[in-house]
């Protein structure tokens, strides 16, 4: 009870501070030196109130205070403590409070870390950030208050959706939000810098760290979500081109492009329009992501039950933000034509520009595939969905030049360059092609496209690997990230080519056999836990080499709410994952068994970790 009360009033106080910050800033804008200290303490106070509010919500979850509607809807006394806590952000209200927390945290950190920036710039950044913050305060208090009362107090809660009771998904939202919401500070800062016309190499250097933080968290957040989907949803895939996944990929694509542009801006003071537009795009895409996931507009296999009225609020808010940023862009931004800057067609600038256009193309494909069904539904009420073939067809062919550009681009010099080490470049290309022929000679399907794809990925792989060891280019973060990307594409390709799947229905004691694999369903036993009962099925799987594996997938029936989930059993090795998942069809003796051998699965995760590791190195690197 007390927690809800304190939490709610903290929110109101935070909102009041947000509004008073506007007045303070406008009143004293020209007298800004006095303001400097005051702003910092006000921002700290706001952060403090949001933190209090957030801890109140966590506490309500820990003590299972069911007079709080959010807790009642999403928790249960029998839940393990860890999931009581993670349940805080496993629901709409709590996750928005987390949004708010990250928003206020980032502006506070930003003010602390930007002591040397012009005062006016700091104030304007704060004002733009406060627009977002106040918007979210209103949204939270108006439409999704996490501290609503229920009277009389229920004795027991409804429980958390069991598929969310999982370690990866417990930390997935906070990490993803750090990335999503981290882009808000880039957005505010870009708007401030544009209005003051101070976009320069210095500014680029200062904002680069913020872009990197956001990018690292976004990358890791997407990775966690993907790993979770792999083992929890029981489909054995890692990416489904599902709308909910796409909305996290889109800001990532924009942010990655922005990261490359800022590197140019930092050195050469060009591509300013790109930087501004991409910063705005990244944040708007993050917000639209929240809007699309939370509004229920998206027709997704991941969709959780939700409320369309909330969507309208975010939509209007989003519209205001976009309008504001477009106005600022057109009224304040003028490309500096005086010191016109030209570069040769073969140069680092050109290669980054080409990279930008490729990324924009990928982004538009994903955007169209995600939004088109909504659009069509609105204008003609026809229900459609866009499946993986659409994305594969449009993205995969373009990966080939993209990968080769990634190998050669970083070797080019600024302004005007020549291709050096021609011999190496060509010999590596030949080696890559030969190698992919060797790998693929036993396959008859799509041999041409696969060979070219694998060749280009191998090419990037070898070039980056060699650069890593000769250390001639001295840009280790870029090197590692690009190497990670080549590894990612390679593992995805191999994963596609070499994976196999068996789906069958078996009773206990039965077995399945084909030319390569024998699956024996040996027995079942039962397990009783505090919050679920489980049926554990014991399988022994023998492959054509005679290797035998014991695999024991589970079928859990949670008590609150009563939902069955399948827990896959996965044997991971460096070469392949053996993945088995079962399901019981209601009132039948048969178990639905799905056995998959997924090649190089672990390398997909590792390569994404490697990519973000490149970002971390760049983040930690001192300015040389």
């Amino acid at each position, binding site marked *: 009870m007390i927690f809800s009360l304190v939490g709610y009033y903290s929110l109101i106080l935070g909102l009041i501070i947000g509004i008073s910050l506007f007045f303070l800033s406008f009143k004293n804008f020209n007298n800004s030196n006095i303001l400097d200290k005051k702003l910092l303490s006000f921002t700290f106070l706001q952060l403090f109130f949001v933190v209090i509010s957030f801890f109140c919500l966590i506490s309500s979850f820990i003590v299972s205070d069911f007079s709080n509607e959010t807790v009642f809807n999403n928790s249960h006394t029998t839940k393990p403590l860890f999931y009581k806590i993670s349940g805080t952000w496993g629901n709409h209200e709590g996750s928005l409070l987390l949004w708010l927390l990250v928003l206020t945290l980032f502006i506070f950190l930003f003010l602390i870390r930007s002591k040397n920036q012009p005062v006016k710039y700091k104030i304007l950044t704060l004002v733009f950030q406060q627009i977002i913050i106040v918007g979210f305060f209103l949204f939270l208090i108006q439409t999704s208050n996490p501290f609503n009362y229920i009277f009389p107090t229920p004795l027991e809660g409804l429980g958390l*959706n069991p*598929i969310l009771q999982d370690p990866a998904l417990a930390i997935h939202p906070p990490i993803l939000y750090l990335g999503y919401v981290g882009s808000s500070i880039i957005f505010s800062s870009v708007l401030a810098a544009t209005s003051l016309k101070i976009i320069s190499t210095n500014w680029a250097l200062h904002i680069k760290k913020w872009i990197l933080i956001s990018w690292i968290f976004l990358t890791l957040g997407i990775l966690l979500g993907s790993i979770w989907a792999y083992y929890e*949803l*029981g*489909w054995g895939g890692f990416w489904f081109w599902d709308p909910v996944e796409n909305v996290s990929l889109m800001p990532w694509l924009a942010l990655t492009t922005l990261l490359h542009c800022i590197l140019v801006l930092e050195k050469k003071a060009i591509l300013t329009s790109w930087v501004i537009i991409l910063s705005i795009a990244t944040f708007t895409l993050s917000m639209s992501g929240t809007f699309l996931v939370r509004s*229920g507009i998206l*027709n997704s*296999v*991941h*969709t*959780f*039950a939700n409320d369309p009225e909330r969507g309208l609020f975010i939509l209007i808010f989003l519209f205001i933000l976009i309008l504001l940023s477009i106005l600022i862009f057109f009224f304040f931004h003028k490309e500096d034509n005086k010191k016109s800057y030209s570069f040769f067609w073969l140069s680092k600038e050109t290669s980054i520009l080409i990279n930008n256009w490729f990324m924009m*193309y990928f982004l*538009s*494909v994903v955007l*169209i*595939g995600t939004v*088109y*069904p909504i659009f069509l539904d609105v204008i003609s009420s*026809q*229900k*459609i*969905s*866009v*499946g993986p*073939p*659409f994305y594969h*067809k*449009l993205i995969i062919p373009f990966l080939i030049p993209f990968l080769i550009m990634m190998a050669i681009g970083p070797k080019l010099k600024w302004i005007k360059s020549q291709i050096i080490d021609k011999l190496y470049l060509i010999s590596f290309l030949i080696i890559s092609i030969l190698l992919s022929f060797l790998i693929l000679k036993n396959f008859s399907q799509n041999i041409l496209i696969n060979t070219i794809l694998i060749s280009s990925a191998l090419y990037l792989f070898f070039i980056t690997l060699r650069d890593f060891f000769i250390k001639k280019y001295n840009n280790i973060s870029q090197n590692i990230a690009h190497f990670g990307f080549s590894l990612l594409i390679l593992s995805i390709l191999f994963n596609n080519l070499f994976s196999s799947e068996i*789906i*069958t*229905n*078996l009773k206990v004691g*039965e077995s*399945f056999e084909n030319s390569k694999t024998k699956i024996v369903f040996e027995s079942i036993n039962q397990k009783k836990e505090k919050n679920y009962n489980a049926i554990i099925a014991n399988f022994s799987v023998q492959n054509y080499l005679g290797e035998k594996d014991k695999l024991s997938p589970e079928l859990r029936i949670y008590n609150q*709410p*009563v*939902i*069955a*989930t*399948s827990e896959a059993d996965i044997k991971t090795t460096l070469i392949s994952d053996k993945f088995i*998942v079962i*399901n019981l*069809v*209601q*009132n*039948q003796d*048969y178990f*639905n068994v*799905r056995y998959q051998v997924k090649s190089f699965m672990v390398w997909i995760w590792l390569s994404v970790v490697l990519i973000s590791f490149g970002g971390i190195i760049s983040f930690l690197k001192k300015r040389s």
Partner: protein
Amino acid sequence: MYGRKVKLRFLFIIIILITLILTTFMILKSLEENVVYFQSPTEIKSLSEIDNSKIRVGGMVKKNSISINSNEVNFIITDFKNEINVIYKGAVPNLFAEGKGVVAEGFLKDRNFFSATKILAKHDENYMPREVKEALEDK
């Protein structure tokens, strides 16, 4: 007549325009080929012809209609007005049960038989796919 720079710039703009047009065309073309339409059993009954494109069928799994053997699962999808038999080989999601909403993806054999290649999972027992809800409300 014109300087070299102007000519180059002109060429550049033309190339960009052509690329843009081609890309748009390509995206639209591939959208057209790859979208999956959603249909209710009633809509299927009134189809004038059966083509072999992939579609989604949604509705409720009819009570006592699931039967299973070692390599396939059969059931009936109903929108309480019309129904359609589904033959499915593959993995079933956890929340697949009689009397619950379902969306199946696959190909029509005729107006009464549907061969499914995928049954879509849901995350939440309270959640009903929007199309299914609308299809059921349309009756």
